[in-house]
């Protein structure tokens, strides 16, 4: 699976990234379920943006994943107190999980 992790255009000095999944991207529910498996310590919730549902998975004081903001994207919002070595570990866990999907 070819993956592209790009800084948000206004990433606030590295806090905000977007992981773009290749087409055809898995369904939103499958992405969220995958993240729950790979980050079982995450607190899971969601928001309604009008008719759109955005799933939020929060690994406290480290990172928040948002699924459903835009189709085929996973938003990553690192917490400011999550140091770069920790961010690297999180990216590695995420990529290892996604690799399960081939």
């Amino acid at each position, binding site marked *: 699976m070819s993956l592209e992790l790009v800084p948000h255009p206004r990433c606030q000095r590295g806090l905000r990234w977007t992981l773009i999944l290749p087409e055809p991207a898995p369904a939103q529910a499958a992405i969220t379920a995958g993240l729950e498996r790979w980050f079982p310590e995450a607190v899971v919730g969601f928001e309604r943006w009008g008719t759109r549902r*955005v799933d939020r998975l*929060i690994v406290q*004081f480290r990172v928040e994943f948002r699924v459903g903001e835009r189709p085929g994207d996973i938003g990553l919002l690192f917490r*400011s107190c999550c140091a770069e070595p920790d961010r690297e570990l999180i990216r590695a866990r995420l990529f290892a999980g996604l690799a399960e999907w081939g």
Partner: protein
Amino acid sequence: MDELTRRLPAIDGVGQQRATLAGEPLVFHCNHYNYWIQHTVRLDASLGMDPVIRDAAESCARGLLERGRSELGLRGPDAVLSLARDCFAELGFGMLDLSKASAEGGVVRTPVSHYGQTLASACSGHFERDQNLFDQGFAAAAVAVAFELEAGAFEVRNNRCMSRGADAGEFELVRRAGGGASPWPSPGIGVLGEGVPAARREDTHTDEGEILAALSGLDFSGNEEGLIPRFGVILTRHFANFYDRISFEFVERMRGSGMLDEAEELLVEAGRRCAYNTFGGIMLSGEWDAVIRSQCQTREDWAHGMVAVINALGWGCWRIIEIDERRAVIRVWDDYESTGWLGMYGGEGRRADRPVSYLAAGGAEGLMGLIYRGGIIDGPALDEGLYQRSCQGGVGYVCRQTRSLAQGDPYTELLVEAIE
């Protein structure tokens, strides 16, 4: 999550699209505006604005915490310190560690700080001065209220701020020799207008009620580390009276130097920067795409859609009366600058001798610049170059405040015209 355990007073809706927390009016503003307004009022160090900023934070926080303590029926210092920590995080200011505080003061830490950490991404270069004056004032209020001390009981020493490279914010509160002094008490909501907002225009495809309902489903509380990342910026749900106090005091001190017009223009510039970054960030966001974009068929619809969002920010009730590429007329009921001015200075029927809605004026210029000069509909990068081409003073649009609630009119009116 941490915020699930926060115990807070209720947020109340008052006036026209205004909100208070334990009687203190709140407005949303982002790290860009927080940088620009603070940068502006501190431009001339000889004006002595640092104590004004710190005192404004202390007075607003004191009002919130005193009324919040009463509203929640809290007893004892620990409960008040906990309330202070929770409010600080909920409103997006960061994490406040008051565990070493006593009636004599003590060391306060801010391991996460909006002012210490997020203003850097709004500016180029490095800070020569600490940015965490607000944190100092808030903490001073927290400890004073917790131990039932007078306002101004503490002075700050040995400050370390993340904006200048410290690992965490840290400062020491020390009892002020000779007792406290409170030169300026926060006036709470101030004086609301009596005018009734105009009806919404019917020649737009946007539905403000639907937009406001959708926005009410979004989480605007501070996350577990006390920050509010949203719309590509870092928001705070801040004290309206804090902005009012530092703006008006800056104007007053500049008036004394004979540079009143320049001072007002600088505050309008801060408003343009706010609009460019916050409105721009909102109009490029996934939230906009999901909720509002589908309602927009014309550039004017984008303006109406953005004004609907503004009406969720606590700034007052905005209505577009006229709009095209050449000019716009926007009226604002209960704009927070006017209500704050009247609350602070409007005793015995006194009215302002000049309009005071600098943020609203700059915001209206920025909105027009983004839509008609900046091509926001096409999704541009919000960089400094685009700002200079579309929104900067003297380039895009210029706003005159043709009516002012602070001067006795029923609403504030903004006439925004294109610069040819």
